[in-house]
């Protein structure tokens, strides 16, 4: 059959976010994929001109509707380093706790969406049902389900007490039990393997060369995780990146599945090691100078560049989200696969387009 160019997206049933891929297909085999972005640009970075650096915390949280806490954490950690603020240790542990809770719910959300993409509706509902427990923890401890708004420059806005930590731990036990019950399905199920094994392969060399990030990179066998930088309280928490070796959609799914379990353990460690004390310090002065801040988001490395000029308005905030790093690898994975597998591969990088375009 002759060559044909097919549009994939910007509106596609497999993902609610607008990314357009121009696919060249030959006999239902994709030969080329050209991504196009720019459908949901919101201009959040530009708001630094009219919002002061404290108000920007609430704005950067809204970059992503899933890992809001981690965006804010990356931003305030950058500012704290710039302004030489020493955050109390308790705040660091709480930041780890909430960021890992965000990772758990983000991965469960993705596992559900992925299950839905290969047609397992019931598995999708199971994942989202389990996720609801994490959302409840978020709401009970911070006051909101997703945009938790706990970070401020200099620490946190709310604390958890002993009754709450006990409740969190008991809820997490249940979450772990239920996630483990899905293990045999996610890891061993024949249908899932058939749909994902060997689809969208990305070799380790290629992943590094194209600058992949997060589970997309670790699914290719590269043990690189920004949590190894030991930001917040990660310096005293045992942590080993989860990897899988094959570099296909199945590996990426496996990495995310096991990271969910790992994050449950990290929350437990953070709670166990959390010292008593203050949760915030008063910040004086204005940010001046420039700084880079990096943290690990559920989708990979998140990167903030912040430039202050000594006034309350910053000069520049540049946000690079992991999906932006994962789009070139995606374009490299697509050629050679069947058209019917494109949704699976696109979803396997866990695209978050709204945060990429900010």
């Amino acid at each position, binding site marked *: 059959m002759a060559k044909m160019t097919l549009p994939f997206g910007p509106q596609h049933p497999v993902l609610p976010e607008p990314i357009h891929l121009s696919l060249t297909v030959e006999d239902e085999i994709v030969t080329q994929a050209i991504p196009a972005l720019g459908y949901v640009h919101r201009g959040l970075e530009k708001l630094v001109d009219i*919002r002061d650096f*404290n*108000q920007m915390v*609430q704005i950067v949280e809204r970059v992503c509707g899933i890992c809001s806490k981690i965006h804010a954490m990356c931003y305030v950690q950058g500012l704290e380093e710039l302004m030489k603020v020493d955050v109390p240790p308790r705040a660091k542990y709480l930041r780890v706790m909430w960021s890992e809770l965000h990772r758990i719910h983000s991965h469960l959300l993705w596992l559900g969406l992925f299950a839905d993409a290969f047609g397992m509706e019931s598995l999708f509902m199971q994942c989202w049902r389990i996720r609801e427990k994490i959302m409840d923890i978020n709401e009970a401890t*911070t006051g909101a389900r997703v945009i938790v*708004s706990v970070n401020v420059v200099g620490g946190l*806005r709310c604390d958890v007490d002993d009754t709450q930590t006990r409740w969190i731990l008991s809820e997490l036990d249940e979450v772990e039990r239920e996630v483990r019950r899905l293990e045999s399905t996610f890891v061993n199920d024949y249908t899932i393997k058939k749909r994902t094994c060997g689809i969208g392969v990305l070799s380790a060399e290629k992943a590094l060369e194209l600058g992949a990030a997060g589970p997309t990179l670790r699914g290719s066998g590269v043990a690189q995780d920004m949590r190894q930088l030991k930001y917040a309280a990660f310096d005293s928490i045992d942590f080993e990146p989860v990897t899988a070796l094959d570099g296909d959609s199945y590996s990426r799914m496996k990495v995310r599945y096991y990271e969910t379990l790992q994050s449950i353990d990290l929350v437990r460690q953070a709670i166990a090691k959390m010292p008593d004390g203050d949760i915030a310090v008063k910040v004086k002065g204005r940010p001046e100078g420039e700084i880079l801040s990096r943290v690990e988001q559920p989708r990979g490395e998140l990167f903030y560049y912040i430039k202050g000029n000594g006034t309350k308005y910053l000069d520049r905030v540049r946000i690079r989200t992991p999906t932006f790093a994962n789009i070139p690898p995606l374009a490299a994975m697509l050629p050679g696969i069947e058209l019917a597998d494109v949704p699976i591969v696109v979803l396997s990088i866990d695209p978050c387009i709204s945060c990429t375009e900010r």
Partner: protein
Amino acid sequence: MAKMTANILRNFFAKRATRLYPIEVRPPFENSRGELYNDIDQCIFCGACALKCPSQCITVDKDQATWFCDPLACVYCGVCVEACPVHCLHQKTTYRPVCVTRETIFQKGVLKEKPKKKAKVVAEG
């Protein structure tokens, strides 16, 4: 097959995973950040809330003693509640009910005799 039967039996006797929503409502958590309201009798119209609000949806007029908030622009972050020096701003634990027209909150209070201002003058003098 045996596994499937066990699963079916478990689901058969398990509690419902969903609620019959409008009839059965989950009680809100104690510190949920919901609807914002101003106890206008205590407000001193200092404007701290308007200054701190990240979405800049509050307007305070000191001379007219009015406090205005656009709840559709409010993001319920609670920054204003923390910023208020007299703690007259509060957040309910429930969300605002759905509305069909663009409602705003406009409240008019009375200007207080400010002992604070006098104190300031003394301090300055």
